[in-house]
């Protein structure tokens, strides 16, 4: 198989909030069509990395290369316009606005008519079409997660970020969500997600990175990480 195109490269990245060093040293790579999972406990720097990729926090060192361009210092709107979109932690639905308006906002940087994009996400989640005029805050938690994912897909992103997508969702909804993620992955969507539900994520991921105290300490394919004793001990609930 030919080497796949590189979508994202993070080199020697460090991010600090004031005196707190949230990311000390992170190196990672995401190739075209890959599903990559970032594992690690709370405060390991996974979410901070996603925020840095979006330009919402400025790295103190290192480089972020996206589609061959150095975006380390770009403002967020340019990064989103270039093709990175996010499903925020806790879903981040604009609850007072309608489902439709949330989707329209997801396509803020899309220059052409968005009918086709709407059609695509409605095909993925027909329920959203039925409820497009409904206030987004009235949707259930699972439905809101579907809306957040659809909103992120509205811009046809080259790289889709998902921050703790299964957080706060019941096991049935999580299964449905991962079925959709796997489907998107099969269709070639490049995805980078953070997840505390390591077992679930590693089952679907091509590769993963393990974060500890702001450093990317380990990387490997899904099966490699699943069978790694350290990973098993820390994230998969002991030696089973």
């Amino acid at each position: 198989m030919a080497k796949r195109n590189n979508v994202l490269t993070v080199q020697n990245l460090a991010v600090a909030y004031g005196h707190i060093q949230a990311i000390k040293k992170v190196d990672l790579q995401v190739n075209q069509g890959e599903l990559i999972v970032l594992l690690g406990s709370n405060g390991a720097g996974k979410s901070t990395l996603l925020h840095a990729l979006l330009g919402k926090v400025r790295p103190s060192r290192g480089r972020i290369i996206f589609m061959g361009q150095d975006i380390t210092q770009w403002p967020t709107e340019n990064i989103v316009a270039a093709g990175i979109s996010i499903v925020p932690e806790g879903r981040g639905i604009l609850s007072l606005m309608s489902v439709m308006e949330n989707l329209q906002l997801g396509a803020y940087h899309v220059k052409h008519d968005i009918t086709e994009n709407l059609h695509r996400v409605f095909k993925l989640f027909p329920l959203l079409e039925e409820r497009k005029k409904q206030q987004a805050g009235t949707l259930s938690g699972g439905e809101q997660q579907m809306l957040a994912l659809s909103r992120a897909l509205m811009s046809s992103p080259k790289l889709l970020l998902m921050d703790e997508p299964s957080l706060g969702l019941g096991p049935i909804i999580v299964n449905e969500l991962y079925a959709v993620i796997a489907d998107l992955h099969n269709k070639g969507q490049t995805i980078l997600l953070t997840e505390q539900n390591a077992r679930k994520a590693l089952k679907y991921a091509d590769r993963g990175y393990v974060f500890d105290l702001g450093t990317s300490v380990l990387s490997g394919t899904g099966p490699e990480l699943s069978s790694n004793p350290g990973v098993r001990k820390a994230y998969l609930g002991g030696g089973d």
Partner: protein
Amino acid sequence: MESIIAQLIDGLARGSLYALIVVGLTLLLLVRGVVHFGFPYIVVMTAYLGWMVLGLTNNNLLISLPAFVIIGIILTVATEPLFRPLAQKRAFLETLVLGQGIAIIFTDIWSHFFLHGQLVAFPSNIAAGGGRIRFGMIYFTLADIYALVGGLIAVGILLYFLYRSKQGRAIRAMAQDLDIARSLGIPFNKTGLVGFGVAGALAGIVAIAIAMILEAINPGIGDALAVKALVLMLFAGMGNLMGGLVCALMLGVVEAMAQALMPGRWTEAITFGVIMLVILVRPNGVFGSRA
């Protein structure tokens, strides 16, 4: 009866003047999370500069009226960078201080450096809207009609902008959750400038309405307008656009009625007395949520 109808028309016209200021302030609150206390003073500044343009152009309305709007936009947009750092930190109360600073400086400029703060009268082709109308005992100015109709049109356009346009949607998204709006790639600076620009156009329209309805200005008008606008915003429920509109029209009518039915200078006391009572009963404003 006829005099009451005339007062009602006059009250609604005044009310639409308040309504436009409240709508402008609410828009600024939405787009930047700031209470721009200086906004009514920008309106007065615009009225002064508009008066000068009238003088320079031999009272040519075709040039002067658009000039009012352009001046309003320039002045309002010019204050956006001042609010930006506070808005990014969501420092709500501090923005009140900043707005008050703009208010005092603007008022002092006109008080000290321009005709010693004397009353400046607008020419007859714009004052009173250029004419007066009489139906039997009912007597009002064309300005009342212009202010009412113009106010309605301006508010209609604004609502369309906020609820139907892409930029309006972006402004409402920023008002609701700045962090998420940023994550969606909504540009903080550009969207803020657009919001301030639209509010500035409103400032220009209000300045025209002031020239027509009040027919003259002095530096102190800013204070009267600012206090009423702020009270109206609190009264209606902070950030509630429709509530602000309705309350503003009501205030205009109550004022006009108090003027017609009560002796002399009790108008303000009565009006604010009513507002105090309502606030005691409904602390979150007439249309505010109870949450």
